[in-house]
């Protein structure tokens, strides 16, 4: 139950879960501590969240493994071991070999490199796009807003997976960067709609009104008050988008619509491993495992970041991590649920 204990009164302490005991309003006698920079504060809060920290460590390790392992791994992904076809994992081939004698470890690391880079780039592109478009549409309303909503509706009817599949013959044989760009261009709409919905509510907040009445320019209000107050949402969404982009990339590559041979990504590896998943499981399991672990880690980190960034969230300054984690999880779930629900309502 998330009952606010302090249910009486006019909301003097209403913002703080857990009642008056956890409130620490600045009392007149408290020694003023030095101003901690925003970034430091966020880092400190994030560090208190064990799951998120583990997630971050996993991501860092995955990046390190993907980009550093070629330096010391026994085989490169282009080498073929003609003595060993389809051998199971061993001392020399850590993840076994493929049917033409490729070293699975080297291949998986190469695929991971590609998938990670693509995920990061797409997450960045699509989140920035959605923040800009969504906040603009939400703040100004009118035709900008209507046009955007129409685009989003269209995307619901025409999933980006379908568009990219159709477009895939066009970038066959071209650089994978085009693929990245297209992926980014077609995955901002849903987040933009959520951002727009939040902008609608933020626009009516008294501090935004206050800024307007003091003569602040609209774009400055967007940059100073609206976007920072959605930071938690944007960060969660950026991470979720990274995860989604990796899944989309691997999915398209799985069908041969994404990264093209001879280049490999986790998707192409999983695709070629699927047929023999039962007989030669290492071909399938290793790339799948890395994919799932990465996406999972990204999602967990997204949640942790939300908590760290929001000064009102529970996890920030509490000693009891366990309880804090519970509370932030609720808050996060609410944020999640509200977002699409909001979007849905706006849609109507």
């Amino acid at each position: 139950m998330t009952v606010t204990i302090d249910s009486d009164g006019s909301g003097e302490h209403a913002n703080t879960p857990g009642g008056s005991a956890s409130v620490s309003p600045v009392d007149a006698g408290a020694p003023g501590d030095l101003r901690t920079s925003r970034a430091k504060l966020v880092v400190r809060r994030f560090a208190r969240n064990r799951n998120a920290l583990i997630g971050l460590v996993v991501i860092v390790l995955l990046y390190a493994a993907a980009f550093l392992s070629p330096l010391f791994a026994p085989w490169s992904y282009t080498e073929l071991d003609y003595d060993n076809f389809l051998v199971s994992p061993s001392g020399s081939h850590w993840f076994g070999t493929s049917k033409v004698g490729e070293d699975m470890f080297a291949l998986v690391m190469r695929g991971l490199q590609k998938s990670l880079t693509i995920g990061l780039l797409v997450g960045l592109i699509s989140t920035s796009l959605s923040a800009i478009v969504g906040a603009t549409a939400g703040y100004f309303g009118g035709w900008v807003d209507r046009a955007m909503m129409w685009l989003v509706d269209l995307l619901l009817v025409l999933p980006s997976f379908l568009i990219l599949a159709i477009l895939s013959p066009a970038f066959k044989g071209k650089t994978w960067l085009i693929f990245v760009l297209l992926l980014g261009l077609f995955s901002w709409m849903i987040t933009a709609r959520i951002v727009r919905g939040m902008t609608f509510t933020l626009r009516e907040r008294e501090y935004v009104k206050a800024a307007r009445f003091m003569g602040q320019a609209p774009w400055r209000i967007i940059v100073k008050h609206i976007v920072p107050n959605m930071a938690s949402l944007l960060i969660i969404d950026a991470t979720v988008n990274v995860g989604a982009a990796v899944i989309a990339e691997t999915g398209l590559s799985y069908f041969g619509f994404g990264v093209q041979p001879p280049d490999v990504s986790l998707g192409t590896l999983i695709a070629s491993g699927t047929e023999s998943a039962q007989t030669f499981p290492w071909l399938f399991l290793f790339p799948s495992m890395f994919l799932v672990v990465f996406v999972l880690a990204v999602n967990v980190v997204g949640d942790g970041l939300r908590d760290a960034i929001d000064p009102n969230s529970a996890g920030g300054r509490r000693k009891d991590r366990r309880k804090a984690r519970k509370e932030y999880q609720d808050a996060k779930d609410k944020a999640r649920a509200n977002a699409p629900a909001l979007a849905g309502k706006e849609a109507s």
Partner: protein
Amino acid sequence: MTAAQTMFDEQAPSENGPVLRVSDLTVSFPSESGRVQAVRGLNYEVSAGEVLGIVGESGSGKSVSSLAVMGLLPQQARISGSIKFRDRELLGLSDDQLSKIRGKRISMVFQDPLSALTPVYTVGDQIAEALRAHGHSMSKQQAHNRAVELLDLVGIPNAANRAKAFPHEFSGGMRQRAVIAIAIANDPDLIIADEPTTALDVTVQAQVLEVLKTAQEVTGAGIVIITHDLGVVAGFADRLMVMYAGKAVETGQVDEIYAHPRMPYTLGLLGSIPRLDAEERQPLVPIEGQPPSLVDLPPGCPFAPRCPMVVDACREAEPPLSDVDGSEQHRAACIRANELIAEDPDAAEVFEVEAVEEAAIAKVPREQRPIVLSVNELVKHFPLTKGAVFKRRVGTVHAVDGVSFDIRAGETLGLVGESGCGKTTTLMEILGLDTLMGGDIAILGNLTTSLTKQSRREIRRDMQVVFQDPMASLDPRMPIGDVLAEPMQVHGYSKQKIASRIPELLDLVGLRAEHAERYPAEFSGGQRQRIGIARALALEPKLIVLDEPVSALDVSIQAGVINLLDELKAKLELAYLFVAHDLSVVRHIADRVAVMYLGKIVEIGEVDGVFGDAKHPYTQALLSAIPIPDPVAERSRERIILTGDLPSPANPPRGCRFHTRCFTFAALPEDKRQRCLDEEPVLAAHGDDQQAACHFPRARAVL
């Protein structure tokens, strides 16, 4: 009340002894920083037909203790002691056993009527459900019929039809009536009302209290009414219990407590209420500081850190409730109660509040002061849309329909009225500096319609705003320093200037320079409102527009903010446009007052004139609805209860807009009524600085 007679046994069951007896009740919750001792040993009892008022600030444990009685606390709450209802122990009963008592013998009315009803069922169904939950033999039809009778009893007009409405189609006051109907549905022995009027307008508050009185009469139940406002219970409660930090600190008969408070806290609470019946302007008594954290409370009196009378002995042991004034009825928990008995000082003396000196400009006659803001025949209409999600236009809301007033330098104009009367819209139009739908606004002599970009900027500088909600008015992601710097950055102040101005501003509103480093979430509501005021002062404006600046604060904290506003006004010679629904606050702070009803000003003038001798029946009704924290006066007051809610501004009544709720109109002979129906009254002068828009103005004592 024929319906009532068939539904309720007129007398409470003649069982002896109190209905409810709470003894040694403690409630604690787990929290990050340790266990919160929300209630720490509470004793009280309520007899049939008796009204007990429980008073305290937020977090004093007053709600928690009553939720404990209902068995509605969250599972992690640890409860000990004893709660006996008609000699039956309630603590330790299972949910099933309790649910047979809840709603049947003890019922509850909650604070926020807007969220108290399930949005997906009709009001009638929800009342019928309460009936059928306990009367299993009752048919659906019977239950429905009775629900309609109950709605009728609590004063919902056209009950049979309204029973089929969903909660969102009811106004706040109507929803609270529906909740009361649910509470009395099964003729309970005890009704607990938890701040039943806090979220409502004064006129509606008066109605709801009236309904509660009716409810008590028909059911003969004991009532526990919980509030933070000593005014509300003055005329309603028989006995009072003042709570602080989870304990009762003073109990007794209402009359005694109001006349002779024996605990400095009670004294402060009483002194913090702005009074409508105050002869001259007295400073309010703020109780500085915060209620203590209820985790690991230090030994000694929990009020000691905020108490003006504190001595060393106070910090040693927590004083027990003990008899004062030689009466067993009146008990207080203060070791210096005897001194209060001996001297009977007033609150301002004890709390050492000093009167604010008048500003130099206030001595200049009004006509000679420059006009800061003038509003002339302002009109604002909105399209009326229907449906929360699927919007479509169905009409026009006449939010503001020809409003004129002016404010001169160093003057405060209070703009009052019920919610929905158009006062906030008026304010937004003034602040918007945009093209107007009708009429004109001039700020410092500049018409808003003829502004260049440059002059608009300059006007923004001279006119600042303070909002109602201290939680929402500060960007939670900005440290206070940045919040205060923003207006100065916009208006091109140099970095050095800004850096030196921030500590100045904080000092001005009673905060300290170090606070600039902190985030809004770290401050209490009162402190945030001070920050909001500091931000408004940053550009040294001439006019500050205040939109209900204290209505979201506890009374004791409100007093501090009002005093601050008073002080700043005198010190900086500011002019205020003070929008509020609370007339006693306006009486305290304003020089002139304008009363709005349905988009029009119905009465305007100098405060003493309007409050002392109101001419418009609406002003009289508003004044009459304000409770006075004096039980004796309150009981003898004849209250004007307005019938019904504010009519929809989309379809204002013809002729005089107030005639649908007007008691003067109702008392008029038929031939005179026609004038009210046909002709819209205009503001006419009554005395030097008082105008009222009524065809038949007559004086009426309202205090």
